[in-house]
């Protein structure tokens, strides 16, 4: 269509300078990537590694559980990089108004301090750090933004087994 009479056809040609900056730039980027990528992948490895689900651990006889929360300790096998150990976990176990046995995690949902039961004679869980309060079911009454987490409970042969920690199912 366009008429370029008397004009030399314009060739879209790359200048030497452009050619060199593309090839050298590309090579540099490739080499820099080769240096940086292994280190980045190395550093983020922990978030990409498969997590193993924690098993259910036998904690206490079912018959011992009452309506009042009691603190039970149990051990899980913990793998922390090149360290393996038996780590102690704590659960506050009680029977709810519905007759169901449930176990609360003692980790405050505010900033992770350890809560205690009835430390103010108020029939509540209380956190000593910034004064979070929770009901028997772990419902957050003040300070904390979420209810206390729960351990998954399994009842087998008259014993309470506790498993992975999940979000509260009771409130």
């Amino acid at each position, binding site marked *: 269509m366009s008429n370029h009479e008397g004009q030399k056809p314009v060739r879209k040609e790359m200048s030497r300078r452009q050619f060199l900056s593309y090839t050298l730039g590309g090579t540099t980027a490739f080499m820099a990537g080769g240096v940086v990528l292994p280190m980045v992948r190395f*550093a*983020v490895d*922990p*978030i990409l590694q498969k*997590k193993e689900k924690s098993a259910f651990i036998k904690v206490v006889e079912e018959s011992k559980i009452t309506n009042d929360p009691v603190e039970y300790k149990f051990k899980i096998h*913990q793998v*922390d*990089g*090149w*360290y393996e150990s038996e780590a102690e976990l704590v659960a506050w176990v009680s029977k709810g108004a519905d007759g169901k046995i449930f176990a609360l995690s003692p980790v405050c949902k505010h*900033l*992770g*301090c350890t809560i205690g039961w009835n430390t103010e004679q108020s029939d509540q869980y209380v956190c000593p750090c910034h004064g979070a309060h929770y009901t028997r079911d772990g419902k957050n009454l003040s300070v904390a933004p979420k209810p206390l987490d729960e351990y998954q409970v399994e009842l087998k042969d008259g014993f309470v087994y506790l498993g992975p920690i999940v979000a509260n199912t009771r409130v």
Partner: protein
Amino acid sequence: MFKAVYNWIDERLDVAPLWRDVADHEVPEHVNPAHHFSAFVYCFGGLTFFITVIQILSGMFLTMYFVPDINNAYASVDYLQHKVAFGGIVRGMHHWGASLVIVMMFLHTLRVFFTGSYKAPREMNWVVGMLIFFIMLGLGFTGYLLPWDNKAYFATKVGMQIAESVPYIGVYLKELMQGGTIVGAQTLTRFFAIHVFFLPGALLALMAAHFFMIRKQGISGPL
């Protein structure tokens, strides 16, 4: 003797212009406490630098004994503090210096703020200063875990919960910083690396930029 050595080097490398460029410049009257005592507020930047040098030096010496391992970290700190000559002093320098550097930095920032020195053309140096501030907080946070005592462990746990509360990325951020799902062996090695190599490296680069800009732009004028 010293003079002879200096001259011998200077003949070959002409070093005089190098140190002259760094050291040989006038201190304006309004920043000189000998003229107006209240000008001592201009010393806080230099004092921050002084304490930073102490942190770096004392930290380098602490690593001669310190072991970043959950079974040995506490014992190594206990040993260097109680069994090594001047251990209490060297660790004390690092321990108290860590708080003092924050105080000095804060006072320096107040001076810059109230003399309006952050205004054009020095905005970039304010930004660099803020980056240095965050690096210092990072050094304080990562260093605090290293002795691996109860205070260290729980302070870090709470710090991790704070990181976790960041919307959306919080969980990953926490796990990345922890180097796993708990505050444990991998957290200690990670924090040690960050405390001793990554952050000091970034700090030195930022301080170089800070001082380069000060030298280029000069100290801000009197009020």
